[in-house]
Structures are given as structure tokens and as C-alpha cells.
């Protein structure tokens, strides 16, 4: 169906590279454009968090007791959780910390953790999956056993248990490591399967026959063919990691206060949901829209690649 939408491709001419073609399909897709724009906004917000704080004059950990009503147990003054010109997204009850500043700084934490976890998972998944698929035999056996073992683990419960048992240390790094250790088998399984079929394809044999080294076979022949499925699998994995980080922080084993994180903000709002619903609605909406945008984008990228394969 995408072929019909691109007559210039059918009509010959210079066929666009698949990357360019996918990008063009995505730019015409309203859902993908809106998701992309929202994500760009979040990234900008994360990068510009100090700038936002400088402009509004509220740091993520600055208490503003003037914004909350101490007589009523610390409920923010004004409607909608204290939204005002001073605090654009309102304040936290009790201590009056600016929610906009905390959302922006929280976006940093969430995005850095999700991005690092994705990078590490992809690295582990690709290396181990390709090792298994390329060398086969006992290497494959060993890697497959480890994958089975890790996938049999009740990942969430185990992640919580590990994180609660580990010394405090550097929480974000621990989170990334723990998420990646349990995340890579899902990618590696696909990479292994595709490598297995690619290794026996004619073009790989031809390269081998003409004396290509193992490195050349792996990086020049096999890896480029894995690109599209890697892009799709990683984009679809990112929302999962954003959600996992938020969930773990929500349960109190993720990022430790005072570092703000969206999940932790929502956890903090549990006791306040009845009197100050905006306190959970705002971080909840940011989290929801981020996960949704990433999912939509991943979905559309997959559709674009699939359409390309079919044509």
C-alpha cells in the first residue's frame, strides 16, 4: 500500500535508500509526526532543565512554603494543585516544590536511564545473539541456556529484590545494569535467529569464498542486514524501559530522593490523590504521553520497514 503512495519509486528513477524511504513515510504519517514532536519537546525540556529553572526561578528541590497552605496540612494554594503564573504546573503539597522544574529534571533521569538501558541491551543482545548464530555449536548452546534461564526469571520481582539488596551506591547505573541484564535475551533471540539464516545465504558464502575475514563477514555482510529489525526492536523496547524505570522508582527501589524521577513523583502523590489530584495527574500524563509516543513511533517505524520489505 505504501508503494501506491510513492509512485516515483515504482516509476523507476533513483530508488531511495531504505533509511530515507522510511523517514519519508514517517514524515507523512500524522501519528508519527505528533509523537516525534512530543518526544523532541521532552528531550528539549530535559536538556534545558537548568534553563527552565533559571527562568522560573525555582530549582527542583527549592521549597516554597508560601505556595502551600500550612494550616490545611500543606495543600497548595489556588485551584488545580497550585497552578499559577509563578508555578506553571503547580507545586507539590506540603513543601511547595515546583512541579515543572521536577518534571524537567525527572525527564533527564528517565531519558538517560532509558537510553543507556537501550544501548546496553542492544549491545549485549547483538553481540551475544550474533556470537550464538555465527559460531553455533557449544557457543550457541551456552548462550541459549543463559537466555532461557534469564527469561524464566520473574524479572520485575527479581529486579526489585536485587535493587533492594544492593548497597545504595549509584542508583541510575544500577538500574541500567539490572534492566539490561534481564532485557538482552529478548533481542538476542531475534538476532540469533536472523544470523542463523543469514550465515547460510549465498552472499555470505560468496564473501567467505573470496577470502573475507570473520570481522568483515560480521560487520560488512551480516550486521547491515540486521539493521532494520534492530531499529524496530530497539524503538519498541524504549517505552518498556521508560515504564520499568518509573515503576521501580514508584516502588521505591529506583532513583533515590532528592533526585526527581517521574515514577517517584507519582509514588509521592499516592497519599495526596484525594485532596490534590493534579499532583499525580501531571507526572502521570507526562509518563503516559512519553510511553504512548514511543510506542506509536516504534509501531509506525515497523510498519514502514515492513511495507518496504513487502514491496
Amino acid at each position, binding site marked *: 500500500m505504501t508503494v501506491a503512495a510513492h509512485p516515483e519509486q515504482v516509476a523507476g528513477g533513483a530508488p531511495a535508500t531504505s533509511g530515507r524511504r522510511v523517514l519519508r513515510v514517517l514524515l507523512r504519517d500524522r501519528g508519527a509526526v505528533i509523537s516525534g514532536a512530543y518526544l523532541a519537546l521532552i528531550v528539549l525540556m530535559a536538556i534545558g532543565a537548568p534553563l527552565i529553572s533559571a527562568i522560573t526561578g525555582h530549582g527542583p528541590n527549592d521549597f516554597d512554603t508560601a505556595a502551600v497552605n500550612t494550616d490545611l496540612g500543606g495543600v497548595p494554594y489556588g485551584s488545580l494543585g497550585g497552578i499559577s503564573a509563578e508555578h506553571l504546573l503547580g507545586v507539590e503539597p506540603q513543601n511547595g516544590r515546583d512541579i515543572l522544574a521536577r518534571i524537567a529534571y525527572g525527564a533527564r533521569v528517565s531519558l538517560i536511564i532509558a537510553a543507556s538501558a537501550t544501548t546496553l541491551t542492544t549491545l549485549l543482545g547483538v553481540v551475544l545473539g550474533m556470537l550464538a548464530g555465527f559460531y553455533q555449536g557449544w557457543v550457541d548452546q551456552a548462550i541459549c541456556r543463559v537466555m*532461557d*534461564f534469564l527469561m*524464566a*526469571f*520473574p*524479572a*520485575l*520481582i*527479581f529486579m*526489585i*529484590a*536485587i535493587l*533492594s*539488596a*544492593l*548497597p545504595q551506591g549509584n542508583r541510575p547505573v544500577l538500574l541500567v545494569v539490572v534492566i539490561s541484564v534481564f532485557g538482552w535475551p529478548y533481542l538476542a533471540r531475534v538476532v540469533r535467529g536472523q544470523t542463523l539464516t543469514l550465515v547460510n545465504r549465498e552472499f555470505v558464502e560468496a564473501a567467505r569464498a573470496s577470502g573475507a575475514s570473520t570481522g568483515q563477514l560480521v560487520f560488512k555482510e551480516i550486521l547491515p542486514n540486521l539493521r532494520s529489525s534492530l531499529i524496530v526492536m530497539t524503538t519498541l523496547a524504549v*517505552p518498556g524501559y521508560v*515504564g520499568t524505570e*518509573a*515503576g521501580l522508582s*514508584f*516502588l*521505591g*527501589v529506583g532513583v533515590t530522593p532528592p533526585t526527581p524521577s517521574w*515514577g517517584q513523583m*507519582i*509514588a509521592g*502523590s*499516592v497519599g495526596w*490523590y*484525594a485532596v490534590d*489530584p493534579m499532583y*499525580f*495527574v501531571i507526572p*502521570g500524563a507526562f*509518563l*503516559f504521553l512519553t*510511553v*504512548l509516543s514511543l*510506542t*506509536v513511533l516504534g*509501531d509506525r517505524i515497523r510498519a514502514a520497514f515492513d511495507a518496504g520489505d513487502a514491496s
Partner: protein
Amino acid sequence: MMARYVIGRLAGVVVILFLVCLFTFVLFFTLQPDPAVMICGKTCTPERIDQIRDVLGLNLPFLTQFFGFLGGIFAGRDYGEGANLVHCAAPCLGYSFQTNQSVWDMVVERLPVSATVAIGAAVLWLLIGILAGLLSAVKEGTWWDRGAMGLALGGSSVPNYVLALALQYVLVVQLQVLPFPQAVAFGDDPVVWFQSYLMPWIVLATGYACLYARLTRANVIDTLAENFMRTARSKGLSPALTMRRHALRPALTPIATIFGMDFAALLGGALITETVFGLNGVGKMAADSIAKNDQPVIMAVTLLAAFFVVVGNVVVDLVYTRLDPRVRITTP
């Protein structure tokens, strides 16, 4: 052949569970703050710590401790000696550091609540997910299909604790149509029971229902394009009959597999739901024990969850051979 396959799989289950057990034990053996200090509390003397370590066998070498724990599960074990001797009967998972209760009893006590949450949610998400997916597939491309699939995409992106808070705010605080959830037994008060579990069910089911709707739709559309479906239609069967007789089984078999695995892994998802709603099930027990570093309870929940996942996978594979004749193991 079949018997051999089953035995092989069961042996695999035992090996994996043993490894999970070992891995968890090593982790807590090396990382956890000293349990004796934890139990002893603030008013503590070195002699008291020594005594506790002695009773719990914490002075013994690692392997002795590990096999002591493992043996306790199958044969029961004794703690301490002489007048202090405590016997812990067969499925012995030790005693909670916090409450001194037998961990096994704690699990058994809380399992009904978790089972109620899990089973109710599963029924809900299967019903809604599959029905919505089927309708969408049949009406592919219509406004219903677009709407339902858009909603499914959105629904699977809501973190369940956010949904839980939103539902509680709207239904309990604002509209006051539901009471705050309490873990009531069905026999005591069926109405309150239903009202209490309704929100946890919805919260736990939403993500899965959305996922299943999308999966069902994709599977049914794929199946409808198959050759045997064209044959069925050209035989003159009505659309409803072709759907019932020929399309549903191949389209829903993969869903059954995924359902088995999701259901087995539900303890993890129930953890957040139970905690948010304050339902005293195994999931909440896990969250509480983690917050208080109650090592024996964390061990038990991890093992229990692993047990469900591993056994669930085997059951799924065995049921799959029943459902899908193409993968049935036959004697050559």
C-alpha cells in the same frame, strides 16, 4: 515419546528452579546487610547477635546454609537446639525476620487474595481483549476498528499505578460509586467483595486487554487471508460459520500460549496493583518485605514467582501440542 518429552521438560524445570534458588541465595548471602543485626534491632549486644546467628545457622559455611534451606523445603528443618529447638514442617521456607511467622503460612494465608485479583483480571482481559480484537478484525478499516485500536494503543501505555490512582480518584473520591477496596472474602459479603475487587481487576486487566485486542486482530486478519479460508468460503459456508469453524482456532492458539505465560508471570504485575489498593496479597507481602529487608520472605516470593513462570511455560508447551495438531509430537 510424549512421556519422555514431559519427563525431559520437568527435569529442565527442576534445574532452572535450582539455579534460581542458588542465584537468589548467593545474592542475599553476599549483599544483604547482616540479618542477625537486622533482627536484633537497636538494643543489641554482641552476645545476642552471636546467639541469633547460631540459631539461624548464619555462622555455617555457605553451602551448608544453602542445602539447609533447600532441605527445609522438601523435608522440613530444625532451628536451634535443646530447649530452643523449633521444628519447621515440610515446605519450610524459614521464618520472617519481622513477624517471626512461618513464611509458608504467610504465603498460604495471602494466596487467595492474589488468586482472586489474578483470576478476575484474567477473565476480564480475555473477554474484552479477544472480543474487541475479533470485532476489529471483522470490521477492518472501519471507524470501530480505528477507534478500538487507537484506544488499545493508548490503554497499553498507561502505567497501571497511574490508572489505579485515576480510577480511585474518580470512582471513590468524586463519584463515590465504589468503596475503598478491602480484602473481604466472597462468602462474607459478595457485594462488597465485588465492589472491592472491581478496580484492581480493571487496573490489572487494562494493559493486557489492549495487548490481546491488538494481537487477536492481527492474528485473525492473517488467518482470514489464508488459502484454507478461501476454500471454506468457496464451499459456500456462511461467513459466521467459516469464522467459527475454521478461523478461530488457528487465530486464537497463539493467544492461548501468550496467555499462559502472562498469567504465570502475573505475580509481578499484581505486586503494584495490590500495593496501590492495599490488598493484602502475596504481591503486597513482597513489596512490604522488600521495604523492610525481610530476607526469607523475599526469597520465598522470588522462588514462588519463578516456580509459576517455569511451570507455566511447560504447561503452555504441553497444552499447545493439544491445541495445534501441527506441532503434536508423534512416534516416528
